[in-house]
């Protein structure tokens, strides 16, 4: 008797799930929408702004070459190196800017917390895989580019047929 009810229960559960919609996010075609434009930090209040911690974005017109991000990273992963750039900015006399090695970066965002001049933010870009280690090193010029990714799919779970993406 126990066996029979067990089989019926199992069949019932299986049949119920025939009607449930597919949960899979079809990744290369669909991309998940993340909160905001990435993690940012407001040094005046000392509190961050919620967002995804992805690849960094560097604003060349704010960066003063103060090396605070590099010092913050020394205790974490030593991913940030300060390199010379061929640009002339009034606020950046030494003309040095951070260059980030994503082979080392752990995406903790403590460098963003360390920046007092609103120059370093994080973005929603996470597609960084590469064939070589050198391809993971991002120069200041590469970090300046705002990522343009069509991220528009959200997780929906309020319909009766289970959670889906769409």
């Amino acid at each position, binding site marked *: 008797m126990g066996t029979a009810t067990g089989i019926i229960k199992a069949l019932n559960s299986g049949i119920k799930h025939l009607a449930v919609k597919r*949960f*899979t*996010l*079809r*990744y*290369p075609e669909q*991309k*998940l929408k993340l909160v905001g434009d990435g993690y940012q930090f407001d040094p005046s209040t000392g509190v961050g702004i919620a967002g995804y911690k992805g690849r960094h974005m560097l604003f060349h017109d704010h960066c003063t070459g103060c090396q605070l991000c590099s010092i913050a990273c020394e205790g*974490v*992963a*030593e991913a940030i190196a300060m390199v010379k750039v061929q640009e002339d900015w009034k606020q950046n006399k030494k003309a040095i800017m951070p260059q980030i*090695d*994503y*082979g*080392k*970066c*752990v*995406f*903790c965002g403590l460098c963003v917390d360390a920046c007092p001049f609103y120059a370093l933010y994080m973005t929603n870009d*996470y*597609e*960084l*895989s*590469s*064939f*070589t*280690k050198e*391809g*993971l090193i991002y120069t200041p010029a590469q970090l300046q580019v705002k990522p343009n990714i069509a991220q528009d799919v959200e997780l929906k779970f309020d319909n009766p047929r289970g959670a889906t993406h769409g």
Partner: protein
Amino acid sequence: MLKDLLTPQNANVFVGKLGDVLVKAVDQPLGYAINWSRLWSLWPVHIETACCSVEFGAASGPRYDVERFGIIEAFGSLRQCDLVVVQGTITRKMAPRLRLVYDQMPEPKYVIAMGACAITGGLYFDSYNVLPGIDGILPVDVYVPGCPPRPETLIQGCMLLQEKIKRLKAR
């Protein structure tokens, strides 16, 4: 005409030439077919080296489902596997075991370094028991950065590996 060309003296040469032509005509499509079948059936080894295995598990779960790309969930024995996903930190105790696993796998085999620790040592650059990256012990094909990488980044890395296999020589 053909009879004139094909004399007993140069029969060997003729057959050899014909073989060359045949190989050229068949080899490229055949190689493509072999590579095609390889890239859609990658079998990763079930070896968890460190904490990135959490996101590797998530990638084979229902939401990201790497089986869409022919990458089977890591279940099989390593004698039938052709992909090592090094899931994070390699410590000095683990390194000989990882190499042992790699040596036991049949050719061809591919390596994905997943996570900052597997690429350069990452967070543990000054630890006394962690290798600074796996380049010293395994030939890496694709680097997937992140700590840990999102499953999307891992899938992107797998797609890069498939691109690479497509362009490799089949034999």
